[in-house]
């Protein structure tokens, strides 16, 4: 807890300017800045889980306003300096990015880091039938593009998020690092077992995400609610079908990392819908458009045959049990998507795109 004197702080002690004479030729330091602090004397103590950024939210440092007017890079709680030119921080409303979970998720990401180079037991990789290896490599290729899309859209908006909501910027920095790490792990998997990368994705949903320019909330709806919910099912299916401990480690850790991203995404969408009048209606419109693109991608993406081959243990099995497993996976995605939409207060069951609705049969 904080332990500080009341009122605006002043420095406890100023260096004595009348002290010993300085060294000739060395400029005398200026100490005027030492008197400048909006709140001084703060002593936050670590709790059982250490000193977390969420613990720092005391006094003025914990005041998270609905609107952050400051367009400079000033840290929340620091004194503003007159004359600093504004920068293009266009997202200055709390409902445009906030999630209460962001600070905790940042800590979780930092604490639960993993190292593909040494944590993944690469020596457990064994030769697979060529059709299966090609399918695994194709999935690695597409998931790499999912991850680099996530990096690009986060960094596009992160640049515009004001520093009043620094917890979100901190968490999103870890999310981009998580994505970089999964790109690393997938590339290593594809290039270490006799295969190589497959063909580039046509990228309908990637493009939709990258071209969402109405605000971070719009991008988050596409990135996390639409694509992210599907990607979680894909990762879970891949863990279930892992061929060795190396894949088991990669997909097990990828699920945990991705789950943090989804937690932030769902939490932010919930915050936005519940704190901004009209947002639920906007979300309905966005999701109507997003479902069209998602359904089209499900129809034509190479993920479909590649995953069916992995789940079926080869091309032959991919035509039967593999495809059945894949269709059930997509059915689970649509059911989860509808359930989360309900939780967000944006029910979609009655308006779900018919090309997605058909997966509910599986």
């Amino acid at each position: 807890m904080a332990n500080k004197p009341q009122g605006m702080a002043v420095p406890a002690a100023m260096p004595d300017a009348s002290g010993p004479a300085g060294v000739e030729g060395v400029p005398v330091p200026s100490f005027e800045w030492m008197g400048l602090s909006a709140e001084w004397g703060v002593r936050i103590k670590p709790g059982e889980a250490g000193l977390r950024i969420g613990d720092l939210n005391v006094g003025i440092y914990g005041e998270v306003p609905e609107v952050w007017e400051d367009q400079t890079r000033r840290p929340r709680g620091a004194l503003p300096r007159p004359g600093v030119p504004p920068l293009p921080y266009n997202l200055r409303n709390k409902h445009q990015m906030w999630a209460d979970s962001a600070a905790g998720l940042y800590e979780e990401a930092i604490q639960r880091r993993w190292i593909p180079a040494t944590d993944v037991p690469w020596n457990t990789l064994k030769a697979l039938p060529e059709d299966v290896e090609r399918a695994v490599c194709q999935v690695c290729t597409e998931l790499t593009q999912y991850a680099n899309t996530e990096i690009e859209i986060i960094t596009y908006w992160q640049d515009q998020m004001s520093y009043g909501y620094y917890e979100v910027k901190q968490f999103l920095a870890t999310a981009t690092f998580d994505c970089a790490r999964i790109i690393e792990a997938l590339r290593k998997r594809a290039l270490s077992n006799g295969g190589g990368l497959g063909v580039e994705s046509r990228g309908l949903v990637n493009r939709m995400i990258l071209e969402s320019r109405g605000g971070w909330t719009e991008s988050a709806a596409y990135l996390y609610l639409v694509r992210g919910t599907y990607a979680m099912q894909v990762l879970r299916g891949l863990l279930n079908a892992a061929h060795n401990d190396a894949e088991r480690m990669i997909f097990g850790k990828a699920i945990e990392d991705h789950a943090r991203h989804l937690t932030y995404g769902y939490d932010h969408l919930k915050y936005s819908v519940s704190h901004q009048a009209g947002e639920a209606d906007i979300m309905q419109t966005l999701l109507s458009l997003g479902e069209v693109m998602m359904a089209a991608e499900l129809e034509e993406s190479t993920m479909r045959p590649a995953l069916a081959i992995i789940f079926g243990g080869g091309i032959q099995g991919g035509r039967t049990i593999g495809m059945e497993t894949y269709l059930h996976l997509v059915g689970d995605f649509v059911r989860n998507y509808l359930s989360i939409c309900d939780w967000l207060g944006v029910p979609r069951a009655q308006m779900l795109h018919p090309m997605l609705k058909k997966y509910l049969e599986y």
Partner: protein
Amino acid sequence: MAQFPSLDWFHQVRDVYNSDSSLHKGGGGACHTTAAFKVEDQSYLIVFEGLKCADIRQASAAELKDADFIIEMPYELWKGMIANVQSHGKADLQYTLNSIDLQQDESIAYSPVDDQYRQDLFYRYNQNFQDFFDASARVETTFA
């Protein structure tokens, strides 16, 4: 020899899990959650704090609301999972929590208060819980 399910069995698994960090490979990293396991009419609350399983105790129906999420499945499925762990030293791919969940029509993990945020912890800490049950390979087990 401990019988599954029983508080004694869960305590023995906890002791194995807490005493050997090499068992934490899958879910390395701090884990902060209170979850519940429901086996037929028996319920257990399990508390993870940091790198340890801090507590596990029997819980009443009312106490289950304290859980971030509950893992519930029929006894035969619990038994199959534990027996598989006993046989292989860790769950093979048909008997991980993830696999079992995928194979069911309804998810085996749910929030008792329909809170999506808390239910997501099942996925965020999935490998910690897998590590916990994999630790039961070192506990001599009988079944009720």
